[in-house]
């Protein structure tokens, strides 16, 4: 069985059916990119994987452990599966180090000194060794997003979910965030990335999923999806995106 897998995920918000039976598998050490038009349910899919959104039906497994049962605390699940948001969502009242420390202190229950040590290590890993004391409002978008990545990494997650991590950034910041993510992919971190950065999807990911209207239309290697899209809808999307 795959490292992280979803079976038959369904989710509706009111009458709007956002996920219509999604099966997804992410192998250990793989980088999976989820692409597709806006509003197709990509973010909801990602949020179902770490139970930030409770699916109406279907199951999620991590290393064969079923996550979608009442016996499993969602807090535990979210410590295993890191998440990075489009709008960073840094804690505005805490500086960079303390942003990273918070989960370590209050979810992993580490003592202050080891939490601080780990936080500084992770911030240096994303290239922010000189911004340890800076508050979110004092950082650029790219720096904020890297703090957010460090915050998720600090929990030593088994999988990292990136929900359009560069969509709110300027071109230069996009580059610095993608560089960090590429580095993480090379280090063998398992990740699922919802993105509109087709260059990143093509070069860095091991597998690509094309998602539309609540279902997976196509999946395969980057060249399968980008060069030989089979489905009409995928073809049309690629034509627009890749000109």
């Amino acid at each position, binding site marked *: 069985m795959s490292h992280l897998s979803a079976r038959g995920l369904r989710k509706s918000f009111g009458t709007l059916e956002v996920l219509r039976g999604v099966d997804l598998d992410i192998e250990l050490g793989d980088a999976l990119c989820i692409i597709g038009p806006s509003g197709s349910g990509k973010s909801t899919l990602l949020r179902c994987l770490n139970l930030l959104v409770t699916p109406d039906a279907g199951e999620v497994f991590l290393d064969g452990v079923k996550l979608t049962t009442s016996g499993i605390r969602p807090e535990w699940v979210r*410590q295993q599966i890191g998440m990075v948001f489009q709008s960073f969502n840094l*804690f505005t009242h805490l500086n960079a180090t303390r942003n990273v420390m918070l*989960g370590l202190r209050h*979810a*992993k229950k580490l003592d202050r000194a080891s939490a601080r040590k780990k936080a500084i290590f992770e911030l240096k890993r994303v290239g922010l060794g000189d911004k340890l004391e800076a508050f979110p409002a004092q950082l650029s978008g790219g720096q904020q997003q890297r703090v957010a990545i460090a915050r998720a990494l600090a929990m030593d997650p088994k999988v990292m979910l990136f929900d359009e991590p560069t969509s709110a950034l300027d071109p230069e910041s996009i580059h610095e965030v993608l560089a960090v993510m590429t580095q993480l992919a090379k280090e063998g971190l398992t990740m699922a990335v919802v993105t509109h950065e087709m260059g990143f999807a093509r070069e860095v990911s091991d597998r690509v999923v094309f998602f539309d209207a609540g279902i997976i239309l196509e999946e395969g290697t980057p060249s399968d999806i980008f060069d030989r899209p089979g489905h009409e809808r995928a073809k049309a999307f690629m034509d627009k995106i890749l000109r």
Partner: protein
Amino acid sequence: MSWSRLHHPRVANRIFTWKAWSSIVLGVLGTYWAVVFLIGLGRLGLYRLSFAESQVPALLGGFYVSLEVVGVIIPLGFGIGFLIGWARTTRVLILRGLAAYYVDFFRSLPPIALIFFASLLGALALNNTTINPYLVHDITLWLGVVALAFHTAAYQAEIVRAGILSVPAGQTEASDSVGISKLRSMFVVVLPQAFRISLPALGNEFSSAIKDTSLLSVIGWFELSGVAYSQVSQAGFVYLRGSLVIWFEVAMLYFVLTYLVTRVVRVIEDLFKVPGLEVTRL
């Protein structure tokens, strides 16, 4: 800032800034000029200076009683207000409903009626019991204080609720995503940010609650205004200017009381400041 930063050595530097000192100096100067003004009026022959002086000990006694009452009302009112405000934002429907009832009830009744209700109901309940009548009298007095605390708590609850609602959903989403429990996230993520927003409004409500204590004289409290009424009744009928002087002195003492409390709130505001987030650099 977060709670644990209170232990930071730099906190002391934040409290004892030149701003803090200058505002204390300004407050003292303001009081001083008010005294000088009062004496000046006396020199002009509007009243006898010796009369103004003779009122000071009694009024100071009332001032200490007011201080004592305020010392109960502010912590109690804030404690209740905080819990009610929090309850109004929970998912638990019953708590939310009860809290809404609380706010609607205590916000809709005039504080003077609440004071009478509390102390009269207390007197009725304890009447004809074996409890020492002096103690019963004290209890009815303090019930009036509690009524005022409940009244200000309703307003503070709304302030706290507004603060909590001002924290964006992304903040709790982020704390959820690292696996922090809902309750903990409330204390380490939501409330520190909610308080930063709420503090100016809370300071406002504190100062208004302080002046509401003047209503306590109606049930027999000899706090600042209670003492003033009795002093005026001794002097006022025959000496109109005298009662004006007494109320002038009372106003000054209320000013001192309010100024003290709002300064403390201001210091706490400074502690909660987030670098880079505020619009102004004041």
